[in-house]
Every structure is written in C-alpha cells, then in structure tokens.
C-alpha cells in the first residue's frame, strides 16, 4: 500500500515545481538545524512545514486503517514522530528568538514587509506584536506609571535585546565560496575561501547571507 504521495506540488504563485516529500524533509531538516544554530531569526520555511504537516496528516489517516500491531504501522508512526519532533523544535526555536529579540525583529520585519521579503509568518508576526504590547503594558502598570513624570517613558531602544551577530558559529560549506572577509579590529582584514565540504568556525556576520541562500550549513 502506498501511504504517501511522493510528488508534491508546491504552488509558488506563478511557477509550480514538483518536489518529492523526501526533498521537502531534507530541506526542513536543514532549516531546523540552521535555525537552532544561528544567533538571529532566519527567513521562515512555512512552505516546507505545511507541506510536511500535510504529509503527516495523510499518513496518519492511512495508518489508522492498518491493524494496531502491524509492523508497518509502527515504522510509519516512528518516522512521523521523528518529523513532528523536527517541526515542533523548529517552530519553538523561532518562538524563543521572537520573544527574546521581539523589538528589533518587529522593527526589521516592518521594513522587510514593504519589500515583500518577510522573515516571519503572519501568525508569528501577530504573536510578536502582541508579545511586545503585553510586555509594554505590564511594565507600565507595575512600575513606569508610578515613577516621576519624566521617567515614565517606555524606551523601546533601551528595552530592545539584539542577537549577537558577531557570535562564532561552526559551519560546513555546501559549495565553494571564495573571498569571505574576516574583519580584524586591528585593521588587518583577512580573506578566506570556503571550499566545498570544508568546516570552519568564524563570526556569523560575514556568512549570514550564505546560510540564507543555502551555500553553507551550520553544524
């Protein structure tokens, strides 16, 4: 019995490309790994999440048709619980970052939305807005409103916590990238190449774009 559709149509506005469930899973897994290891929030991969959720749903329905002690049912269930782990952990990691860096994330997201290059899903965005609002209201009620007049302001800039883009990360190059500039505070910048398959530890900032376009993978 075939429990899944191996070909999934991902509708991406005009161009419709066919990719296999296996590829979707691989993409999702690498998005999860990068999200776990990157200091800042990365562009969402809600397309992959929803696609996998659809597969899970489809599969669960079919499993229920199998006898409870069937070996195949257990195998499928095990695979599903592995995928659910990835999805939950991925979404939760994003929520944690959204909460921690809510103020700068919202500010940057508003700019990104103008160009249509948003990082958050609509529900994540809504969550972030509400989270900041609740935080602001809480500190206003409990302390700010009881302070002398000129102290009552909720200072967004000061309350903002920023991800440390200078933090060091481990990565593996998926393809060869040349001419990465490592800034040096003494002014002696160094240029390095990332050969395909090579592994490095370096600052996140100069390679942030390479993660977003899939040229390197955080490890």
């Amino acid at each position: 019995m075939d429990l899944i559709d191996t070909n999934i149509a991902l509708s991406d506005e005009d161009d419709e490309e066919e990719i296999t469930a296996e590829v979707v899973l691989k993409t999702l897994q690498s998005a999860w790994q990068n999200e776990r290891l990157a200091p800042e929030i990365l562009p969402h991969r809600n397309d992959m999440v929803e696609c996998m959720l659809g597969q899970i749903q489809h599969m669960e329905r079919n499993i229920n048709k199998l006898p409870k002690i069937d070996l195949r049912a257990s195998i499928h269930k095990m695979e599903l619980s592995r995928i659910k782990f990835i999805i939950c952990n991925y979404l939760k990691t994003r929520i944690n970052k959204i909460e921690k860096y809510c103020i700068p994330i919202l500010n940057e997201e508003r700019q990104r939305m103008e160009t249509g290059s948003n990082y958050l899903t609509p529900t994540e965005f809504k969550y972030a807005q509400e989270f900041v609002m609740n935080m602001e209201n809480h500190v206003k009620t409990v302390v700010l409103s009881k302070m002398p007049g000129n102290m009552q302001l909720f200072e967004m800039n000061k309350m903002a916590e920023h991800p440390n883009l200078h933090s060091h990360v481990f990565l593996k190059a998926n393809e060869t990238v040349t001419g990465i500039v490592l800034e040096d505070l003494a002014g002696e910048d160094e240029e390095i190449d990332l050969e395909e398959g090579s592994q490095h530890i370096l600052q996140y900032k100069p390679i942030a774009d390479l993660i977003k376009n899939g040229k390197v993978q955080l490890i």
Partner: protein
Amino acid sequence: MENSNYLSVTDILVTNEKIPCKFLHDLPKMGFLDPSAADNDLKAGTNVEIPLWLAESLYSRRPPLVSVELPKIYKDSYREILNADACTVDMHKLNQHFYELGCYIAKHDIKGEVANTLINTFRQRFRMLLSACVSTDSVGAIQPLSASERQQAADAGSTEKALATWLQRGDSVLTTANMVANHRKRKRAEMEMF
C-alpha cells in the same frame, strides 16, 4: 556592541562596582558621597570612590563632571603579574568582574595597555577553563575563576556531562521540567522546616 545590556543583571552588578574618581566641579548637598568628609557640599578636586554607573554617567556629561582613575588592579604592578602568568591569579579574590569592569575602565587608559592586558589574560587563562570543565577537583579548579569564567566553565561542564551520559547509556530519558522540579524541591524543603 549594540545596546543590548540595559536589562542585563550581570551588567547592572558590574556597574555597581566602586571606582576611584576625581570630581571636577562643586557638588552642593552631595557631601555624603565622600564618607571621609563631614561637609554638606562636595568640593571640586575631591577624590571619591563611587559606583561605576554613576561615574560613567557623570563622565559622559559635557563637560565631564568627573575624571576616572584606574583602579589599582589595572595599574602597572598588577598588569605585570598578569602579563607574566595570568593563570596564577585568583580572579575571584582580585575582582569577580575583572574583564567586564576592565572593559569600562579601558577607555580611561589612553595608552591602551589595559585593553591588551585583558585580552592576553583571557587568552592565557582559557586553558584553565578547559581543565575546569573536566577536572575531578571541580571546586579547586573553579575557585580562582572570575564570575564570567565560572559561567563559561559551568556551561562547558554541562556539555561534558551530557556527552559522558550519552556515551554511557542507551536511550535518553524523558524527565521532569527544570522549574517544576526545582519548585517541588523548594516546596519539600519549606515543608521540612516546619
């Protein structure tokens, strides 16, 4: 660094450390800042130890209201010891926030020697962190570390422990959540007290 420190309790505690300053202007009614003087006012030229947060704030006024002096642990004689062998120094005794405080102090040191000492000290002492996280005598290894070094060694220690557990045992065990467990423990302790 972007202004990410505002809500950090660590930074608040660091900026609570007292440092020597010289007041450049008269401060009426502020005599109490100098415990050795009985005057109501604080006179220009007085040397007083005040918390770093106050010193920073007064230094940043235009014109500056204070000038900041190097605390003795960042002066030549201490720097010589650190530059010779930083691993012999007990940071916990010297100053728990040696590096963080030093970062603030460094800008008042025109020659830039404090900055170099901080960097060299941390580089040299990194091997102490490496050994602290695997040491069997963890108390002895942790003792001479500064607060931030302790934190790093403790984090590394938990990786070390997780890895050792992983190597030894089979399946990962699902466990009670951290805060839940700690509140249960605390509740038990409270009940035992009565």
